């Protein structure tokens, strides 16, 4: 279902532009509570300024570039690891006082942009 995102160029392009269904599916799978993810995402967008979905995908792709993964579980583990690394290397964003990793904030923004519409 989700051996997608940036590893395969064709899917990657589809995610960023036309195929919002695939992206939505990915995000729904990732977040158990999409309502609150959207809420967090909107707060992050308010902090960062509105950015088209493709930019978020590009950022995620850059984040995940070079990772080997086969299924959604692997992808979640990779993302979780990235989040930890964000905290280790102080790649964080402060949103309404919350200290969030850039990766998780990016995913929430993606959720806000994609799942809202």
């Amino acid at each position, binding site marked *: 279902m989700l051996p997608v995102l940036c590893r395969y160029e064709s899917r990657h392009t589809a995610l960023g532009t036309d195929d919002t269904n695939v992206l939505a599916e990915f995000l729904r799978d*990732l*977040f*158990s*509570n*999409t*309502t*609150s*993810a959207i*809420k*967090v995402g909107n*707060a992050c967008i308010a902090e960062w300024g509105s950015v088209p979905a493709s930019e978020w995908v590009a950022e995620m792709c850059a984040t995940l570039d070079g990772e080997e993964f086969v299924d959604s579980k692997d992808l*979640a*583990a990779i*993302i*979780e690891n990235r*989040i*930890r690394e*964000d*905290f*280790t290397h*102080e790649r*964080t964003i*402060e*949103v*309404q*006082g*919350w*200290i*969030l*990793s850039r990766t*998780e904030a990016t*995913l*929430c923004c993606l959720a806000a942009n994609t799942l809202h519409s």
Partner: protein
Amino acid sequence: MVEADLCIVGAGAAGITLAREFVGHSTTVAVVESGGLELEDKTQSLYEGRVSGFPYRYPNTMRLRYFGGSTNHWSGNCRPLDEVDFLHRPWLPYSGWPFGRNELIPYYQRAQAVCGLQAFDYAIESWMDEARLRNFPFDPKKLLTGIKHISAPVRFGTAYRHELEDAANVTVYNHGNLTEIEATETAKHVTGLQCQCLTGKRFRVRTSIYILATGGIENARHLLASDAIQSEGLGNGHDRVGRFFMDHPHGIAGWIVFRNRFNIVDLYQAKTRRNAFVKGVVTMSPQILSGEALSNIYFNLAASMSRSEGEKSVSALLQSFREWEVPDDLLSHLGNIIADLDDVGEAAYHRMTDNADPFNKLRVHCRIEPTPDPDSRVTLTSDRDALGMRRIDLHWKPGDLALKSYNRGVEILALEVGRTGLGRMQVQPAGDSGWPDRFEPSGHHIGTTRMHAAPEKGVVDANCRVHDIDNLYIAGSSVFPTAGCNNPTLTVVALALRLADHIKNRS
């Protein structure tokens, strides 16, 4: 005229500890205490003064002027100063005690009982072994878990009054106020004390040795006010008296919301363990303090609930805590963890998450080491109190380094909470002063008669004797050259015990 071998002025934590050390000793002791056994408005108003700088609750209400002193309202939190607090730290101006922490350890051990605590054991390992508890899995190069002991709290006046009353060699003179310290023409020897009662009665005290133990503001006030011989104030030849005033800024730094409901809080809850009432606190590692040039900080975590509720929940939670594992489903929890972006209020949080378990969220309380600054100071105004003594003006700034250290310390805690997968932290917004609103001083009055081996850099020497005056000593937190971030009274008591030993050896 009151005559004895030793006069102790002030019967608070320091004065009472000193007096008790002489019970049954060959030294005769006169204790002169301003108040009676209860709070009296007229006596308390002798403490009134002016304040400026960092918002400071009026000095009148941050200390109590009757037998037992401010221990009549202290909270009983005790922790010795950390090793780093005694060191010269190049990034912290005027830092460095004339001795290291080891010098105080035997006195800290004795101070525990005086403060109503069990044995001196602040090593986190021994508490974890005992209770099979776990601490937060923070990077020990950054954050450590320490222990604090909590006293009942012992009210020194109530607890030790009868012991002093029964002692044949100790006499307590309540309602007696020191108004002037008399000295020889050279100001190198104290010859007596002038004292007054609010009734108008006056008396003189003449002893061989004198100890001021009137609290961290009044100790300086009395030296400054005793200007008959030295116009700048007794012991103030180098203009150090009253300077370097410090208190610990403290307040709520934020909240940690845990991603799992049943995380780890037991060690960080105040509970009776091995007959001691203790609690884990989060501290900064010495490496990070020196590596990032920060002043000292500690974090005290508190669940927003009553202890009885906590006791019940904790036992249910303990099992999952002991089997601590970092869960692998962070992303699925993320939304819930940070769902409540609008309002961190307890009610709203529970409404959002439909979660009545308060252990999901801890309040982070923070106390920071202030920066020694000669311009933070106690001076005398021209206003006079009912005894004719000049009132104080208290000007204090916690210092830029303290604020920088606070901000960085909170950031490090938030990063570690995220990195370890415990949850997320929401930090308090900064107010106009740069500090979060409602940050305030702790009522710990430190530094105004600072200790330093060199007379030009401090008011008292390593034995707490006023430089150049052979028979005048000072007890209390006014002698601390730096404040650390831990509550001061255990150190006040340890230093008083050490001073008592010194005086016994001297005679």
